């Protein structure tokens, strides 16, 4: 029984969201607010179950680590943000968070971009396969031109840089176009899945 209700609710929710494609209307607005409300309710549950209980309440009350109350003190300082006289206390916590996350940039940059730097070392050798050599040469030229395009404090009027950065912008456009084209399939399959749900699971008008 619950299955049938779930299928019907899912179908109505899907059609409600799709109504925005025609124009903004009360049906969409209803499902929009419903969606945000459900999301908030779920987050309230998740924040307690996954963060506050296991990482704060249990260590403090059950395991006796009394010093976790300071996390509560710091967390409560946020709430002084609305009072002009005490707002500086909120800034204590905010500025500490800003400093900590700024310091994190070195590890994040290393994890994401160092492998990219290593991958840019491509041998321009034509021995095993000529195509690979040409492609590696082209990749290096593209890398050079696109980086030159991003130079801000050097004027792009003078010749060697002007041509290279224009070429760089053209390669960027080709790259963006290729990225766009390669994503079309994935986005369409999202809709095809929804359509097969509506036609097969809900209306049962097509068979698989």
């Amino acid at each position, binding site marked *: 029984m*619950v299955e049938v209700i*779930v*299928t019907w609710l899912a179908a109505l*929710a*899907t059609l*409600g969201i*799709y109504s925005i*494609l025609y124009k903004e209307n009360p049906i969409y*607005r*209803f499902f929009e*607010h*419903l*969606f945000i*409300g*459900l999301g908030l*309710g*779920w*987050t*309230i*549950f998740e924040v307690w179950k996954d*963060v*506050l209980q296991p*990482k704060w309440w249990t260590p403090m009350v059950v*395991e*006796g*680590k009394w010093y976790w*109350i300071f996390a*509560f*003190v*710091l*967390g409560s300082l*946020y709430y002084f943000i609305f009072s002009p006289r005490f707002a*500086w*206390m909120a800034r204590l*916590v905010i*500025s500490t968070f*800003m*400093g*900590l996350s*700024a*310091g994190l*940039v070195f*590890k994040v940059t290393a994890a994401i971009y160092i492998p*990219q730097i290593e991958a840019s070392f491509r041998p321009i050798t034509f021995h095993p396969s000529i*195509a690979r050599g040409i492609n590696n040469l*082209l990749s290096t030229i593209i*890398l050079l031109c*696109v980086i030159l395009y991003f130079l801000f404090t050097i004027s792009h009027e003078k010749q060697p840089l002007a041509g290279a950065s224009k070429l760089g912008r*053209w*390669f*960027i*456009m080709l790259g963006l*176009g*290729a*990225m*766009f084209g390669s994503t*079309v399939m994935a986005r369409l399959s*999202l*809709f*095809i899945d929804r359509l097969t749900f509506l036609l097969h699971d809900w209306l049962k008008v097509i068979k698989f």
Partner: protein
Amino acid sequence: MKIFHPVKDPTLLTVYIVASLVGSFLVLALMHKFLSLRAKGRFITALTFLAGFFYSLEFFLPAKNGKNFLTPWVEPVGDALAVIGAFAFPLGLVSLAIVHWGNIKRKREGWYFSLVLFIATIAMALSAFLSYYAHLSIAKKIYSCLFDGLYIPLGVAMMSTLAFYIVSAAYRAFRVTNVDAILMMGAAIIVMLGQIPFGMWLTSWLPMQGIVSSLRIENVSNWFMTVVNMSVQRAIGFGLAVGGIAMALRVWFSLERGMQMGGK
């Protein structure tokens, strides 16, 4: 770490907790009274500066078998950040509630949708807590209807609208107006054709081997992806790496005008 050892006995524990609660607010009150506005500002800027050293030093300092003197603190600090951040969630909830309570109170047009939002929030939170902690079967049914019946499908439906938007975006953007648009359009069409069997059929008459085979649509499309696209993404990545470090340094040394918590 001696003083920070756990306390098992419940009454002593409550004493410790209450004492530290009162103690910290006392310290804050004293700071509030005796520190001048400028001193508070400088203290806040100093906090940003000091906090910046934690993760950067932990990353750069040499680590003997994977640990340096800061490494043991990474996990607790991470948990503390998550917990303190979690305390900001109710504040965010309050900010949204104020907006929507305002709609209801002033009976602004469409106020009943704000009511729907409140009801949905309470219904989902209650049914989630009751079914998880109290294992009530009625709560489990309601939760299943709300979660599997509405919440998940709403997300999947919203994401699937991307199929429509990608079509209208392509229709509007790929116009022969300037070089940028032409290049982007050309690469997009080739890669799109390379993904469907019909596209491959268009150039299936070309030989399978040899130089000419590189003109087959799937090979041209793959060339765009593996040579052009990968190198462009890599070059953009180099810029972002440097830009990210620059932004972090501007924040770390409080150089950004709008974000100086300690004031100028």
